[in-house]
């Protein structure tokens, strides 16, 4: 698949080197800070489960209690396991309940008490990580037994009724109709909840709440579909928003297969504090790496607010940054579903050729990544007939440029949440294109020096220029200045900042220790 664009290898190396230099200070920031959600994720691995009668998870109650007594900067593991020893109980959830009732005091122990609390915390957390390891082995076994989809790209379909018990039959029907990956869209607004709801849920807004129980129910249903269909059907959810590290952890524990996990999406589109996001991001990617989960990044979103031609290079820049952050956190290339989208105004002359150039550029820059190819949304007008045609061209670009994961476009995008018939028509569109032209990438070689090559070179050149400016300016300032997707997001603003703390000298997080030891 490489070499069709005749990219300058020195320029590609330079782009990666600049992304590394832009990203490194942010990684340093992430290594020296923690967040309430990182700490909650670690406690979930150590065995805290369930929620109080108001639906607030016990991990939230426990972390809040520890923070009230000793702050966040030491990490909560040592104070929690120290209290457990003092209270002479073994169940961390019970400790959380006592802490919520105000009957436990937390302190930061020293000396022998500290080292034995560390040991106990590490033992309990390792047990949680072992569950993730078992889930990963289970996935490998099932893929071996049932097999991967016969074709590339994998066909990715969205389900979103708000009710997990409605989602299940819809997801199974979608799998039967050809979907290889099912994504359950989350309820609008979940990204800004600073806790993960509990239990099976039947009420959501434009999506279904992501909960551990909903994950478990859907994975079990798709396991039976995998068996029925003789191919492993993958399940996707979202590690984004304020609870990103916990979402990643729950996904690992319940064997989800892909997670949306962008390095900057929450900052730009949800106004979440940049530092909170980068800290949460790194931890969640470490979990994904361990769990064998494929991440999907969100570059498609930039093109919904910014112009898909003028700002094409910001997608490339973001992909390079996402790649750097992902590698740093231990993810392998085959786990990088880097995003990009078919969002050029169809009225623009040569729009299809421009789309081909951009898609091929991503393909050649990241030859071993699965790449997530996203359908048109911005220029879907409600004219469903034109929309179906546009989706056909989108599918064709996917086939011609060897994309790894194809999110099925709906002709009713921006009209209604997809009807059964919309999904059927959309899948028929995909099947037709893949059947008619699925291997066209073997023959499709753009003319040397022609329009497509020139366009790709230009976008790469602009990406390198932008990366140079970001390195000079620092990534945090670039985000504050509105470099990505026009939104301006300063590092001292945004949601979730109060849940961030700098590490004290004695900071300890057994989950990070284990995940980094492995990475």
């Amino acid at each position: 698949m490489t070499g069709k664009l005749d990219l300058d290898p020195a320029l590609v190396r330079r782009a990666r080197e600049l992304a590394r230099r832009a990203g490194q200070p942010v990684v340093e920031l992430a290594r020296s800070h923690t967040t309430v959600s990182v700490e909650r994720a670690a406690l979930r691995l150590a065995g805290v489960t369930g929620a109080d009668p108001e639906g607030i998870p016990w991990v939230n109650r426990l972390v809040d209690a520890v923070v009230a007594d000793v702050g966040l900067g030491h990490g909560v593991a040592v104070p929690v396991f120290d209290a457990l020893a003092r209270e002479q109980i073994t169940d961390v959830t019970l400790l959380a309940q006592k802490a919520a009732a105000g009957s436990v005091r937390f302190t930061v122990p020293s000396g022998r008490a500290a080292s034995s609390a560390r040991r106990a915390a590490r033992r309990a957390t390792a047990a949680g990580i072992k569950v993730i390891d078992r889930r990963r082995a289970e996935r490998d076994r099932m893929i071996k037994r049932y097999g991967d989809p016969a074709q590339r790209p994998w066909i990715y379909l969205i389900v979103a009724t708000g009710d997990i018990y409605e989602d299940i039959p819809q997801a199974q029907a979608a799998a039967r109709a050809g979907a290889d990956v099912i994504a359950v869209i989350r309820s609008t607004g979940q990204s800004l909840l600073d806790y993960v709801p509990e239990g099976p849920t039947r009420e959501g807004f434009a999506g279904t709440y992501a909960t551990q129980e909903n994950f478990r129910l859907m994975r079990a249903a798709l396991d039976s579909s995998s068996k029925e269909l003789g191919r492993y059907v993958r399940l996707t959810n979202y590690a984004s928003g304020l609870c990103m590290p916990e979402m990643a952890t729950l996904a690992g524990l319940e064997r989800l297969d892909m997670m949306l996990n962008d390095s900057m999406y929450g900052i730009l589109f949800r106004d979440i504090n940049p530092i909170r996001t980068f800290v949460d991001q790194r931890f969640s990617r470490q979990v994904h790496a361990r769990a064998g989960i494929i991440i999907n990044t969100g570059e498609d979103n930039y093109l919904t607010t910014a112009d898909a031609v003028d700002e094409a290079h910001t997608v490339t820049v973001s992909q390079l940054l996402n790649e750097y952050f992902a590698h740093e956190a231990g993810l392998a290339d085959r786990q990088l579903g880097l995003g990009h989208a078919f969002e050029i105004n169809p009225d623009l002359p040569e729009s299809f050729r421009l789309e081909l150039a951009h898609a091929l550029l991503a393909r050649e820059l990241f030859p071993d990544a699965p790449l997530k190819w996203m359908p048109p949304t911005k220029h879907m007008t409600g004219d469903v007939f034109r929309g179906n045609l546009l989706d056909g061209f989108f599918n064709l670009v996917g086939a011609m440029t060897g994309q790894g994961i194809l999110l099925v476009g709906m002709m009713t995008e921006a009209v209604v949440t997809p009807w059964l018939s919309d999904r059927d028509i959309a899948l028929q569109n995909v099947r037709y294109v893949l059947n008619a032209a699925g291997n066209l990438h073997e023959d499709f070689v753009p003319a040397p020096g022609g329009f497509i090559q020139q366009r790709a070179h230009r976008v790469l050149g602009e990406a390198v220029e932008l990366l140079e400016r970001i390195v000079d300016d620092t990534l945090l300032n670039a985000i504050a200045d509105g470099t990505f997707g026009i939104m301006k997001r300063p590092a001292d603003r945004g949601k979730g900042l109060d849940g961030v703390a700098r590490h004290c000298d004695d900071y300890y997080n057994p989950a990070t220790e284990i995940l980094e030891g492995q990475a």
Partner: protein
Amino acid sequence: MSENRVVRPYGDTTGDGMVQMSFTLPVPHDKRAEGAALQLAAKMGMDPAMLVHATQMGDGFTFFVVYGRVNHLVDLSAVQVVERDFPLLSAKEVNALVKARLRRKLSVVGACIGTDAHTVGIDAILNVKGIAGEKGLEYYRELKVTNLGAQVSVPELVEAARAEKADAVLVSQVVTQRDAHLHNTREMAAAFREAMPAGMRPLLIVGGPRFDELMAGELGVDRIFGRGTTPREVASYLVHALITTKMTTNRKVKAA
């Protein structure tokens, strides 16, 4: 032409009344399913109806495409719509009118309220980038735009409107599940009525693809903009409502 107030759908001949329709019935595809589809078409006034396509989806659903003649007539004189009741101005004209007549920048505060995180609409109207080749309101030199972005609470919006001395508040609502867009709009309108006396409150404008433009009064807002609205239309309306028709009335109180 003007006396022809009654029309029928047009297929390929004037007055043929032809329409196309597609729908799904929760039954497997067989003869009976096709008969059921034709029965529905007949009840919808299609006579004769031609079933041109039927295909089963999954286990128990069939998708149909029906073409046919409807016997309904459309009386154009009975149609009610909100016609644009203000002149469409260029950015230059908008700036000139604001500068000459208001003699300060016109302050606009925009947001997506409630849990709605879809900023596409508000960004299309406000961001410099705009939409369909038209620049957004930020591009208008004499407008001062504050875009609060997504998931703004109503109290935050009221506070921001007060702080920015907003002449107009623009709210975008895309998510319509369980009528969230209507509830949110009513809540917002009520909050502004409660927080500010009539002459002092900003012009309240909502927009989104699923609003009925006739519902402004019912929802307690000054204006609703539907699908396909451009920044220029919004800017022209602002000038119309706040300057050209209103300069002598209570808005002066605020400036004083």
